[in-house]
């Protein structure tokens, strides 16, 4: 739920990084924290266990700059990935404007990815939010590892597509990040939509800003 404050001329939006445990959600935020100028970001708050596993959330406010005279600030949150922290994970989703799903590309983590994606759909549905209609991007992280699954397998499991029933959206939409691929396409007579995806190696920072930029744009587009 974005908040527009006409008194202080600020727009605040909430982005949540979701995904299985140890997938790299916190690493994404740490990289952003390290790269963005200290003038444009706030303090990073991590509510973590002694072993640095996220217990409640990580939080990082980032100023995008002034747009139309309004200071545009994104509040980035991560959720705890471990299955048993669902109660706190659900709380963080409240009022979300955009979601990045950070998937762990390792073949061994495929099941954990699918379980976390299902959990995301379920938690969103409980708030009455429709994941297919809000800004949502998938990041396939850890692409440098030798046991990383091929993108087409990850896409088939995590981003198989959803039917597009709204006639105004039934038009072929190219994926700007992947030439030759479409975000909305007619497959077997049916219009199908996919979430945009990005490949990443978050520990090196590869793909981190591409993902953030893509989802931020989508969020601001919903306000324009």
């Amino acid at each position, binding site marked *: *739920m*974005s*908040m*527009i*404050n*006409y*008194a*202080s001329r600020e*727009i*605040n939006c*909430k982005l949540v990084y979701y995904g299985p445990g140890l997938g790299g959600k916190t690493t994404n935020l740490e990289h952003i924290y390290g790269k963005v100028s200290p003038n444009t970001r*706030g*303090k990073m*708050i991590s*509510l973590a266990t002694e072993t640095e596993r996220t217990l*409640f*959330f990580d*939080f990082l*406010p980032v100023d*995008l*700059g002034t*747009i*139309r005279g*309004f200071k*545009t600030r994104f*509040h980035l*949150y991560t959720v705890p990935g471990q299955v048993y922290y669902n*109660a*706190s994970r659900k*709380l*963080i989703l*409240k*009022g*979300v*404007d955009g979601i990045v799903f950070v998937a762990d590309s390792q073949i061994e983590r495929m099941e954990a990815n699918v379980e976390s994606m299902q959990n995301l759909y379920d938690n969103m549905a409980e*708030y*009455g*939010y*429709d994941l297919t*209609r*809000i800004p949502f991007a998938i990041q396939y992280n850890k692409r440098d590892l030798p046991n990383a699954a091929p993108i087409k397998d990850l896409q088939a499991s995590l981003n198989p597509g959803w039917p597009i029933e709204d006639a105004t959206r039934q038009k072929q939409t190219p994926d700007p990040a992947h030439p030759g691929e479409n975000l909305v396409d007619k497959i077997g007579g049916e219009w199908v939509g996919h979430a945009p995806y990005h490949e990443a190696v978050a520990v090196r920072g590869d793909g981190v*800003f591409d993902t*953030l*930029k893509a989802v*931020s*744009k989508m969020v*601001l*587009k*919903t*306000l*324009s």
Partner: protein
Amino acid sequence: MAGAASWSFNENDFKQIQTHLLAFLRDSNARCALLVDRNGQLVATVGETPQFDPTAFASLTAADFSANDQLAKMIGEAEFASLVHQGEKESMYLADVAKRVILVVLFDQRATLGLVKLKAKSVVGELNKVFEEMFNRVGTGQAQQKGLLEGAEDEIDKLFG
């Protein structure tokens, strides 16, 4: 619903909020009052300027309130409409406003918890009215937003290079 609805508030709303909170601070002897929305965004600060990072404070406040909400449900309560965190010198009182916003009152030994609670009750009533009015004019708010961010994409592109 595709996602949560946005809301906005204008100069006049802010003035009304400020007037109510300034009167509350004067009557209760509290140092500072903050309004934080349930998603962790700071809406307003009135009174002494806090010495901490208000953005981080707001996100933790919302998390604190939400976690306590769930705890209330677990023990069979619909909600905890207010919370108190008492320290040796500094304390906080948190109260729900219109189910969407949290009033956070910071006070020290110059104020008593009893007085803060008593005065907070009436200011929460006033703020409920202001916020409900604000949420009811969502339609107008949407109209004001339209076109506000046209051309923003280029500016985002510039920011991220």
